[in-house]
């Protein structure tokens, strides 16, 4: 079956969903192909929004006209304005409500959705992607494409770099592992090089427990307060797990010495994995059971294994019409980061399809600075001289990038100030038409 749309987004995680909406808003006939039977990818189990610098980034997006997904997650937030170690004013969306809400939003925008379409082939010539094909024989043509296939797995990466498949939300055994479109085109692709002892990759930093398996008092406290912190008995503290985490913003001592539980609909436990026998020795968790990954006592998904060099328009280096977004587009972690990079990639795919000049978000905005700062060049080096490239995780929420944001004065929770900065940058409503 042959299908044509002006823009085709491959991968339906937060970045792909954001790209599809932005492309559609820019006027292009847009479709999205997703490997599994649900949208949102890693976003199906995340939940944390608006913590630290993510607040400013979300507000910039709203002012620029690409804030639809932030308004959606705000509307299904279980808790707002929450503080926990190293993080302020977070909000937690309900991970059980997000996917159907996002799907409805895409359909409302008139975006064509192709579910259970795992793209495994690409036809390209001289950097121009002509068509992609799904495993079951659908052929998708477009003027421009967005690779939003994420960086989790494939399963073999979890095997070789982590503790094996722990049955996470990506569900590779059922739907087949992630496939990178850039890779199918023969473009260079890199893994995070934060650790020198393994070839690359980092382990997802949180696992989720069924709330109904917590003791009644713990559950009630979590429902009421959104966050519960329980000290870990000294003999169970494992600092070495911290250095393997994807999210450096949660690689703080507090997260090894305590169990930090957040209420995202599940009880989100801010550690990569925690042996079940040990977990059950902690008061309130005697009957705990993991919801994601199902084997959260053993390991978690490996990520940051597939980063593609690109420029500040999100165009993949060496490609004429392939844009990249989300974890594909840098050592970028987070929903907010995926939504921001996705919006720009989607809009520029639509502009390219219509032969219009591409958009760059100015560096006077946190979103623009982040996009420029988190890129790598063709050789895998930081694209900017003072950048961290493959050697650090980039997120508005912590670690090196939040520090930079504060240093540049780009972090603020003053919504009026964000709006006036966006206006001064000439970006007000820039994503609206």
């Amino acid at each position, binding site marked *: 079956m042959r299908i044509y749309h002006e823009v085709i987004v491959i991968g339906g995680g937060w970045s792909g969903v954001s790209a599809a909406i932005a492309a559609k808003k820019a006027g292009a006939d847009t479709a999205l192909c997703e490997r599994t039977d649900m949208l949102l990818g890693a976003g199906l189990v995340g939940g944390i929004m608006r913590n630290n610098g993510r607040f400013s980034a979300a507000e910039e997006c709203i002012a620029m006209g690409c804030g639809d997904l932030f308004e959606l997650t705000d509307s299904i937030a279980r808790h707002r304005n929450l503080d926990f170690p190293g993080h302020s004013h977070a909000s937690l969306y309900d991970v059980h409500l997000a996917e159907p809400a996002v799907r409805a939003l895409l359909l409302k925008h008139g975006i064509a959705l192709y579910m259970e379409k795992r793209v495994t082939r690409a036809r390209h010539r001289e950097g121009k992607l002509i068509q992609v094909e799904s495993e079951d024989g659908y052929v998708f043509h477009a003027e421009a494409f967005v690779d939003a296939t994420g960086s989790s797995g494939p399963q073999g990466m979890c*095997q070789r770099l982590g503790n094996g498949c722990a049955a996470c939300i990506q569900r590779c055994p059922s739907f087949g592992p992630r496939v990178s479109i850039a890779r199918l085109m023969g473009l260079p*692709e890199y893994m995070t090089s934060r*650790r*020198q002892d393994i*070839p690359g990759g980092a382990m997802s930093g949180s696992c989720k427990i069924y709330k109904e398996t917590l003791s009644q008092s713990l559950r009630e406290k979590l429902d009421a307060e959104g966050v519960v912190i329980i000290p870990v008995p000294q003999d169970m503290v494992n600092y*070495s797990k911290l*250095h393997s985490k994807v999210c450096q913003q949660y690689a703080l001592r507090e997260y090894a010495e305590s169990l930090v539980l957040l209420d995202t609909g599940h009880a989100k436990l801010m550690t990569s994995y925690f042996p079940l026998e040990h977990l059950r020795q902690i008061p309130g968790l005697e009957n705990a059971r993991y919801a994601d990954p199902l084997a959260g006592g053993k390991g978690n998904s490996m990520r940051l294994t597939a980063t593609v060099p690109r420029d500040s328009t999100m165009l993949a280096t060496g490609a004429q019409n392939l844009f990249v977004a989300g974890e594909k587009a840098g050592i970028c972690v987070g929903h907010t980061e995926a939504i921001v990079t996705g919006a720009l990639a989607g809009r520029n795919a639509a502009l390219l399809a219509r032969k219009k000049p591409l958009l760059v978000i100015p560096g006077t905005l946190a979103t623009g600075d982040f996009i420029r700062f988190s890129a790598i060049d063709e050789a895998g080096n930081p694209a900017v001289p003072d950048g961290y490239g493959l050697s650090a995780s980039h997120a508005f929420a912590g670690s090196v990038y939040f520090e930079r944001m504060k240093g540049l004065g780009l972090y603020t929770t003053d919504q009026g100030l964000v709006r006036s900065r966006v206006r001064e940058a000439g970006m007000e409503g820039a994503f609206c038409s």
Partner: protein
Amino acid sequence: MQPAKSLPCFDAGSEYCPCILAGLGKCISCSMLQGKDTCDCGWNGVCVLAEFVRTGKQARPGREQVTAQVTRLTPLARPQADYKAYLAEIAVPSKLARWCTLPGSFVLLRPEGTREAFNVPISVMETSQHSIKIAVECRGPKTTALEQALLKHRKVVVTGPFWSGLQGYTQLASLAHGNTLVIAKGMAQAAVPPIARYVRARGGNVKTLIGPGTLGVVFIDGILERLGAGFEHMPRTEDRNLGRISDEITTRSYDLLVSAGSKLQHQAILNLLDTISEGDNPVPRFVWVSHLTMVCAEGICGSCLLAGFRGCKARFDESFEVHLLH
């Protein structure tokens, strides 16, 4: 001990799996692909059969071969040796370099313009984003041809990455945060730096007793120092240093013992561990550098057969006795 019928494979879960053996009904792990109707497989953490079905029952292509430039070549000074040995740095694509980081990684090297029969398995000592460092002793026809290539054109054909240069990987992964003792002799020193780096990165301690062996030189002390890994030189002794090694194991508590040396050394150390365990002393888990004769390293040629298994692919994690049947 009878080995299991199927063993875990070093390549399972990599982009090289399923390999040509799957299509031929000779996968070393998957009992289904071997023609049985039960899953008594050497579980790899990934299902080889599922991958094979998914790829349309096609084997994935094998390792790429790249022609690479030798960017640095240093002869190892060895006063009494008949043969030459070298340290070399080779510029390779960054993907290959990164996948050579794991302990036990090696590549096949041969001079540009020669047939695959000239391939020599060589351990990767260190990697950077775009290069690998190796050490090679030039004795027989293959390594002599390689020496000429290194000296003249400075161009070699590199095939890789391969990972089966170390056996006992599961023990290493689970105990690396503890105390590790490495016994390294001769050329097998080349396999030690990635092991030391791996242990140090997991917060473990590692001490290496290094003997020059027949090679006659110690060349990894600088790297170990940089890694904050302790080491001690072992002069050549009548008892092949077994007294010294025994003292070390019994006076300190080690979780892991890595033997980087000849098969004779592996056997001698295993005998020693047996003696120690008879006295009810705790013994470290045994991990060893593989000394099989490998040629294709992809499970085809059969040079590495060991108790019926292809030693270039199979992981003999717990059953090191099997390794010594030959």
